């Protein structure tokens, strides 16, 4: 069901935890769907120097959080903003269709954290992005 990479990031998640006095915090998901992702950012000169996460959710949600934090760590916040869910899924060697929404959640949580950082800095928040939370019903025939 899951790729080796997903299982690795699920079993040994990178960047788990919190950052004290973070420069930005974002959260996505809701308990109804069974996934909540929280991202903490440390930003210096617009570069994400540290990032941590806490996630309630299935294996792919945890793996997606872990992979997403890896992918944006050390990047500028603009680069980080451009991280797409499919990039996260690809880096994990794919996710089952029914679990693709977990990667969307990761993208969304990072966006929320970046917007929080921008708000604190007095920058305008970036809006208008629609997240596709279709829970993979594409697997159902017909």
């Amino acid at each position, binding site marked *: 069901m899951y790729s080796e990479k997903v*299982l690795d990031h*699920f*079993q040994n*998640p990178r960047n*788990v*935890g*919190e950052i004290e006095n973070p420069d930005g915090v974002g*959260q996505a998901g809701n*308990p*109804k*769907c*069974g*996934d*909540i*992702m*929280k991202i903490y950012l440390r930003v210096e000169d617009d570069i994400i120097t540290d990032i941590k*996460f*806490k*996630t*309630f*959710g*299935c*294996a792919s*949600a*945890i793996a997606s959080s872990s992979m997403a934090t890896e992918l944006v760590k050390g990047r500028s916040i603009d680069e980080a903003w451009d991280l797409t869910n499919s990039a996260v899924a690809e880096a994990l060697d794919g996710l089952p269709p*029914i679990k693709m929404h977990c990667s969307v959640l990761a993208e969304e949580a990072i966006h929320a954290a970046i917007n929080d950082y921008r708000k604190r800095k007095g920058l305008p928040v970036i809006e208008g992005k629609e997240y596709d939370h279709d*829970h*993979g019903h594409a697997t159902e025939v017909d």
Partner: protein
Amino acid sequence: MSGQVYLDYAATTFTAPEVVSAMAPYFTQSFGNPSSIYSFSEENRRAIAESRQKVADVIGASRDEIYFTSGGTEADNWALKGVAWRNRAKGNHVITTKIEHHAVLYAAKFLQENGFEVTFLDVDPEGRVRPEDVARALTDRTILVSVMFANNEIGTIQPVAKIGALCRERGVPFHTDAVQAVAHVPIDVKAMNIDLLSMSAHKFYGPKGVGALYVRKGIRIENLIHGGGQERGRRATTENVAGIVGLGAAIELTSSRMKESSARIAALRDILIDGVMKNIPYAKFNGAPSGERLPNNANFSFIGIEGETLLLDLDREGVYASTGSACSSGSLDPSHVLMAIGLTHEQAHGSLRMTLGEETTEEHVRHVLEVLPRIVKRRREMSPLWEDFLKSIEGGR
């Protein structure tokens, strides 16, 4: 299963070796079509009749009230759709509950889409249907009541005899999905006033793909599968002889050791429950207390953790368990049963079901009690919900 701890007997059991042996001759030797009249098929017909008798004996029915099916799901579908279809002239109201297996639930929803009215009864916080609620829901147009014998997720045993009595009094057919109960707890369809009852062989050490529906004599039911005259014209298809023989052998075997097995398994289950409740903070126990639940079922919620995480972590430790119904593991919706007993979404998502069986040992239970607290602790530490929960109880102090 060396080094492995299988705790998902409610999802399916292995087929007992004795059962496999009983089935063996019907693949390559006595393989004739039971409907054929030549002597070669006599052995087959006799074997099917014997199986039917064994099933009847275990539930207190008579042989000609037993019809073999392809499993519990087909039996449930047949009971609901068959009774509804056949009795449309009398009424269009069906009563069932919010905690039924999907086989009953979705059959009921299909009826809803086809002109029937369905009442889905609530249950109490331990998962019990209240007979008063059934009584209140009955109308002149009610043509069927379907309440499961025991719930597959939380193990709660329903007051079936009481519901049966009040349905009989009102002359309304009463169906019970006893897939989790047959051969595990005593059942007597006559004493309990049950009119239709579903079972499935792979829940009592028989093969997958075969089940049975008991239909009390006199109950009117339309066929679900039309065709040849098998099963006395009620369920067409060349008989799955090996499967039917397997079901018969399994129900005989499992019910013959029911008393001692139940006691042994319930004792282990109670060790498991006690250990979990003692060693894992803020664990929630789901379902009814020991006397009123299936002997083999333990169900918990661990706030802050999603169930799949637990399953995969346990899997790494060689422990196979389940979160909610096996069928819905692929789904993302929290279990309808756990929601119906009043759990929050978080609790429902954080549930773990462990169901014990013939090969479960005290060692197995000890192993779970060793690894589970560690797993829960580690996963909670990376959960924002657990963080929130801790804050909320600190704030509460």
